[in-house]
């Protein structure tokens, strides 16, 4: 979040502070290992994830993560510890070597689920309607909710696997239209974008094309890597240049814009595609009814 996803991080901080939800950055967090460490060493992957759970436990706070892969790996480690088998012993023994203990009580939530169910669409709607600058309203724009894989599979028990609705609820709260598209839970290719570039580009392009078929103005993503991949697939690609470019926002960048937070504070200038904020402003102008402001 401090690197390629700085924009996402900045928008999370800005939106939560505006919503009045006390968000503390977890003290001394470390990488969850994602899909890479577990391909090399399983105990290490689970110990890395569990280290974060152990650090969060004494605070008694819920652990909210903006990244689906973190959510998945932390949930996997949580399940392993709670199952109490051989792997749980190895995880606990590893943590103990570093002076940590974990009893399996940390609650881990992904930010989309937290925003949809804990904060709620009504609260967000109230903040959108209360904002001072109506200029950033997203109402009338068509937004494609792109979930990707790991929020919904394999662990989500609050969402239907092939038709999750949490992002739809948030989009509707902003007065924007949902652009429904078939590939909303398809894979962006994940790390294949680095290891098999042609395959990765192809998978991400299919998703972008599908959102265009659904006449989406903007794609909203709930994952730092999906956001990056969908932007990389467009960067320097004539198929997606000029009018064909489709801005990719993180979930909190989208909410923040509708809540009247400045694009700068939301880290929009950190997008790979230059001028995303301006592209969206132009779309808003085109869509705005002529009577407004008269």
């Amino acid at each position, binding site marked *: 979040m401090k690197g390629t996803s700085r924009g996402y991080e900045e928008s999370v901080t800005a939106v939560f502070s505006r919503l009045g939800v006390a968000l503390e950055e977890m003290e001394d967090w470390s*990488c969850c290992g994602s899909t890479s460490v577990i391909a*090399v060493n399983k*105990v*290490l992957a689970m110990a890395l994830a569990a280290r974060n759970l152990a650090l969060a436990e004494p605070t008694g706070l819920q652990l909210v993560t903006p990244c689906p892969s973190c959510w998945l790996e932390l949930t996997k480690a949580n399940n392993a510890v709670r199952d109490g088998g051989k792997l749980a012993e190895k995880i606990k023994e*590893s943590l103990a070597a570093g002076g940590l203990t974990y009893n399996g009580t940390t609650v881990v939530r992904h930010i989309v689920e937290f925003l949809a169910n804990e904060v709620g669409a009504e609260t967000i709607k109230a903040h959108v309607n209360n904002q001072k600058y109506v200029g950033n309203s997203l109402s009338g724009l068509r937004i494609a909710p792109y979930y990707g*894989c*790991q929020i919904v599979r394999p662990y989500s028990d609050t969402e239907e696997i092939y038709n999750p609705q949490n992002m739809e609820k948030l989009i509707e709260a902003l007065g924007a239209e949902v652009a429904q598209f078939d590939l909303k839970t398809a894979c962006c290719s994940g790390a294949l974008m680095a290891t098999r570039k042609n395959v990765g580009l192809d998978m991400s392009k299919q998703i972008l094309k599908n959102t265009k078929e659904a006449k989406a103005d903007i794609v909203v993503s709930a994952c730092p890597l999906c956001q990056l991949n969908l932007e990389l697939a467009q960067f320097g690609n004539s198929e997606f240049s000029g009018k064909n470019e489709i801005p990719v926002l993180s979930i909190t960048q989208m909410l923040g814009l509708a809540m009247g937070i400045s694009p700068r504070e939301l880290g929009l200038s950190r997008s790979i595609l230059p001028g995303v904020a301006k592209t969206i402003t132009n779309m808003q102008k085109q869509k705005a009814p002529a009577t407004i402001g008269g």
Partner: protein
Amino acid sequence: MKQNILYEGRQDTGFLDEIAALPEGERVLSCLQCGTCSATCPVAPLLEHPPRRIFAMIRAGMRNEVLGSLTPWMCSSCYECTVRCPAQIKITEIMYALKRKSIRENMVPRDSDTHRFYKLFTDIVSKYGRMNEMMLILRYMMFNHPIDLAAQMPVGIRMFATGTMQIQPHKVKNQDSFNKIVQKAVSLEE
């Protein structure tokens, strides 16, 4: 000449049991060969051995062919197969297990160096506690993919301009405790 027939004597009869004995392999014996995994896998059309066939090959004791297959290295961990499998086999987890086995037994296919990416990722995280994307991409691409790396220059420049590419790796604060956890976990790997 390419050998297309698997003689009984070349089968590794213990391979199925070995996979079934893994914590993630408990349900592998219930595979129906229905093909749902291959039908849902987004990269299946690119694979010589789509996931259904991998399970048939495990059952047939084709140890070398399975551990030398490209399939696990093309798995993007999308978990489509896992949630759809009617036999509730943890397919994505088995793909991870096959990757680990393939690395450990030096069976990684020649036409893939994805394992290098995973190892570099693991090395960086084990050392600093956090990821440094530039270090990962540079180390991964510098020698083996120099042309692709050169093609990435415009993206790299853009990322420097936006402040999303950082040279200095972030580190965890309690490095001593972190190192001990890593060392212990590595020593306990099954």
